[in-house]
């Protein structure tokens, strides 16, 4: 293709191409050749389709696309214009697919998606539950075009935003549009891209645009999909950014593990250059922009912006202190002011310029407009890449799109934000997914990795896993990060190997806080998050490991007491073969495990085909031995005692009595008396909780001779009262109350007060359970 010298040249080219490419009368097969599908053999399928069509003398266009999203079910094929969507395609099906869908007029039923064997197959991609709720902006072309063909990108509207900008917009207009769209960075922190661009634009000297394709968060692959499947959308975004801020050069930093991304990007850069869309004097204007690629060499810390700059310069990937910021002269690559954004952020730029900021803001939520790509992985049925409007709930993503948990097990938590994020438990499944809501739950959006965890996942082990990751990836510059994560890891390793000690949880929390405060870069500052959030929501599992030597998910070794349940055992003897320590004993009555020899290696547990080898908590098995109560019964009772504050709040009509700070003490006491409550919550003018005033405080006021009539409650209340989340265990609440010597406790959910609980409430709530348990046992 010839170099384009003007916008008119571009328009002419687009018109020519549109007549040839994606015509309605030539059937097309879009075969997914993304990494996952390629690993499942999609290239073979593509070749077979081509051969089959040739044999039949049919004219079809075969397009090898990037990742289409539903990686688990790959290789995927989309047939256009009929719209049929086939999954798990095999080369030997090619003939039949061509026969029925191209030659004939019907779908090839065996290749279609079904929820289960009994349900009707779904013919088209848009009707699939996986795709129904999606809205694709960043991934707009991923399931359509061949990434190596710039013509297809152009026909799909590519470089149209660049054309529009050149034709109608000044650089400031482009910048304003992005600013108004409130496009927030998709790489982690959600910083507004418009603000960053403005900063860089204001800097002096040569400017550089850098795209962060390091994607170090394990379990996330959206940037990979874009770089591999639609590289021009990244280039166009970078071009628009360069145009807006007046940058001369662009660099794409790609992690070492993504060779295909490097290859496709290189090719895209070359073809864009040959068309004159990159390089000197684009469209014969005096705007020039050159782009190149830099490859990483395997260091998670290099995803951090200053470390990435250091790595480009050929240094060790140590983060650098700020200021100067990247966007200032002296802060970026080789000292040139640099605008750094994530790949997905750039991929959103062209559609915004094309359709306007209003359109963008109409999608998503008020504070987080637009869409976000998530990689749903882990114990979910349909793993893959999804792009959804912000504000969708976790439940919709995991259950409607992801199809729920594999094997219909119980959902336990979803990990978002990778090593910097946290685990969100089931009770928050209905909260919306956007930057601020996730942060409120103690996690982060991060780059969009979502790892779904089920009942078989041990939360302590998950915490340990993340810490071992950050510990080994810490660049080592700051002692709190380097040594602190090591200490935390050691504690967690002890806990998961059955040697937890009293006080470990508290040490973890205080170490975590210190690391957060004392680290230079985001890696250290966020490294304790996965641990702190799992302690917050799953403290009980930590306690079970430490105090009861028990892992409820049976994931940790060296835990619990091993026993064979004779009712389930089929006497196959596999456990005996598996045990290297001869702890499984065969008798005439069946098999049993000799605890004196058992080293808790779990070999028998893994070997048993019917799940008859049980791992029990010590306390339960002691009761079982002593009183001959079946362990199952004890476990049911134990579960009943395992209640959270929400249960208490739900169990009785709870009045939350409140007043304002300037309310007189006498009035407050009257209110309390009238409502027959022992405490009153005091709010300030901004409706924030300011303090609490209790029966005890009345006593203090009386003793100190404070005038009930004149003094406002704000000056005698206890400020900043302790509150607990509704998901907190009753046991923890009792502990907190007795340790802090308080009797009244506001209970919150999503930071809002949903009830008041007094010491007496808890005792009277527990009492029937306690009596019930006691009766049942004795």
């Amino acid at each position: 293709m010839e170099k384009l010298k003007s916008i008119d040249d571009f328009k002419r080219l687009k018109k020519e191409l549109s007549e040839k490419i994606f015509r309605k009368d030539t059937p097309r097969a879009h075969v997914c050749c993304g990494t996952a599908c390629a690993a499942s053999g999609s290239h073979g399928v593509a070749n077979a389709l081509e051969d089959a069509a040739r044999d039949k003398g049919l004219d079809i266009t075969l397009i090898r696309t990037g990742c289409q999203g539903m990686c688990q079910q790959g290789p995927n094929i989309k047939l256009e214009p009929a719209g049929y969507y086939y999954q798990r395609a095999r080369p030997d099906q090619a003939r039949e697919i061509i026969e029925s869908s191209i030659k004939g007029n019907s779908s090839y039923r065996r290749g279609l998606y079904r929820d289960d064997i009994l349900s009707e197959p779904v013919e088209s991609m848009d009707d699939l539950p996986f795709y129904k709720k999606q809205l694709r902006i960043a991934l707009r072309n991923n399931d359509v075009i061949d990434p190596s063909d710039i013509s297809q990108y152009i026909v799909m509207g590519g470089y149209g935003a660049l054309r529009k900008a050149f034709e109608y917009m000044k650089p400031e207009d482009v910048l304003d549009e992005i600013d108004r769209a409130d496009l927030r960075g998709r790489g982690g922190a959600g910083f507004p891209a418009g603000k960053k661009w403005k900063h860089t634009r204001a800097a002096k000297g040569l400017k550089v645009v850098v795209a962060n394709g390091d994607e170090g968060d394990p379990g996330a692959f959206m940037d990979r999909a874009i770089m591999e499947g639609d590289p021009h959308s990244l280039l166009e975004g970078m071009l628009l950014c360069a145009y807006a801020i007046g940058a001369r050069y662009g660099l794409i930093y790609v992690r070492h593990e993504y060779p295909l991304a490097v290859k496709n990007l290189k090719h895209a850069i070359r073809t864009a250059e040959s068309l004159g869309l990159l390089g000197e004097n684009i469209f014969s204007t005096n705007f020039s922009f050159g782009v190149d690629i830099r490859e990483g060499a395997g260091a998670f810390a290099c995803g951090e912006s200053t470390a990435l700059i250091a790595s480009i310069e050929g240094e060790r990937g140590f983060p650098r202190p700020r200021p100067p910021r990247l966007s200032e002269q002296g802060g970026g690559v080789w000292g040139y002011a640099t605008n750094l954004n994530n790949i997905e952020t750039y991929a959103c730029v062209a559609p915004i310029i094309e359709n306007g900021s209003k359109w963008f803001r109409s999608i998503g939520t008020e504070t987080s407009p637009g869409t976000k790509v998530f990689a749903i992985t882990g114990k979910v049925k349909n793993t893959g890449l999804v792009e959804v409007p912000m504000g969708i709930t976790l439940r919709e993503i995991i259950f409607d799109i992801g199809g729920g948990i594999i094997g219909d097990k119980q959902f336990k938590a979803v990990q978002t934000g990778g090593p910097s994020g946290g685990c969100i438990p089931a009770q928050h499944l209905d909260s919306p997914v956007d930057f601020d809501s996730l942060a409120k739950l103690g996690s982060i959006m991060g780059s969009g990795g979502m790892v779904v965890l089920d009942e078989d996942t041990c939360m302590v082990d998950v915490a340990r896993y993340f810490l071992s990751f950050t510990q080994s990836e810490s660049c080592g510059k700051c002692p709190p990060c380097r040594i602190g994560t090591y200490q935390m890891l050691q504690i967690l390793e002890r806990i998961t190997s059955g040697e937890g000690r009293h006080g470990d949880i508290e040490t973890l929390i205080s170490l975590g806080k210190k690391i957060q405060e004392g680290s230079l870069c985001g890696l250290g500052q966020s490294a304790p998050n996965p641990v702190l959030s799992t302690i917050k929501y799953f403290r009980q599992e930590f306690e079970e490991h430490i105090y009861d030597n028990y892992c409820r998910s049976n994931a940790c070794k060296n835990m619990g007491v091993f026993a064979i349940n004779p009712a389930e055992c089929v006497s196959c003897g596999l456990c005996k073969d598996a045990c290297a320590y001869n702890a499984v004993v065969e008798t005439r009555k069946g098999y049993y495990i000799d605890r004196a020899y058992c080293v808790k290696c779990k070999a028998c547990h893994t070997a048993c085909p019917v799940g008859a080898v049980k791992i029990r908590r010590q306390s339960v098995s002691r009761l079982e031995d002593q009183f001959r109560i079946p362990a199952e019964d004890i476990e049911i009772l134990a579960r009943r005692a395992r209640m959270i504050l929400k249960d208490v709040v739900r169990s009785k009509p709870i009045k939350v009595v409140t007043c304002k700070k300037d309310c007189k003490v006498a009035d407050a006491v009257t209110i309390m008396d009238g409502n027959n409550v022992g405490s009153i919550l005091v709010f300030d003018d901004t409706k924030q909780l300011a303090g609490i005033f209790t029966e005890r405080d009345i006593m203090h006021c009386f003793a100190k001779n404070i005038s009930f009539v004149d003094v406002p409650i704000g000056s005698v209340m206890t400020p900043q009262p302790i509150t607990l989340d509704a998901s907190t265990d009753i046991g923890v609440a009792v502990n907190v109350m007795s340790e802090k010597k308080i009797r009244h406790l506001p209970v919150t959910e999503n930071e809002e007060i949903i009830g008041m609980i007094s010491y007496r409430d808890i005792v009277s709530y527990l009492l029937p359970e306690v009596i019930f348990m006691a009766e049942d046992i004795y």
Partner: protein
Amino acid sequence: MSGCIPDMDSYYRIFEYELTDEQRRRGVLIYALQQIQKEHNYLPADQLARLSESLNMPLSEIYSTATFYKHFYFKPRGRNIACVCTGTACHVRGAGKVVEKFKKEFGIQEGQTSEDGSLTLETVGCVGCCGLAPVITVNEEVIGDLSDEKLSGIISSIKDNDTSSSD
């Protein structure tokens, strides 16, 4: 290109004139190391010494940078390289067991090479193919959805191919 300076002009297709000579030499270091590793499968000491000369950079500097990055190896690696993904998605779907199996079958730890030099076992944070977890790469080929049988098949094919090729 063994050990000499890689082609600077093609590496600096952009930033042609803006950088000092020292910045240019420093900036090419990681790329140069990658090229050496591509050729030799690891970073041989004599190659690094030559690189130090041609980049006019102290050898200690080169080592200081190279050791920071996980992707660089200083010892020869095996004829086959199995890299088990231990990223989160793979971890929760049983990557631990995959690592164990390799360790047992080849009698090595992570990062080690088997005695006969047939295999080096490595782990990686994520290969970006999480949809098919657990995932491994064998000599850069991505293999996903590993079941026990699939894994056994892979291991025996590594062993078989290796004996046939070394004959």
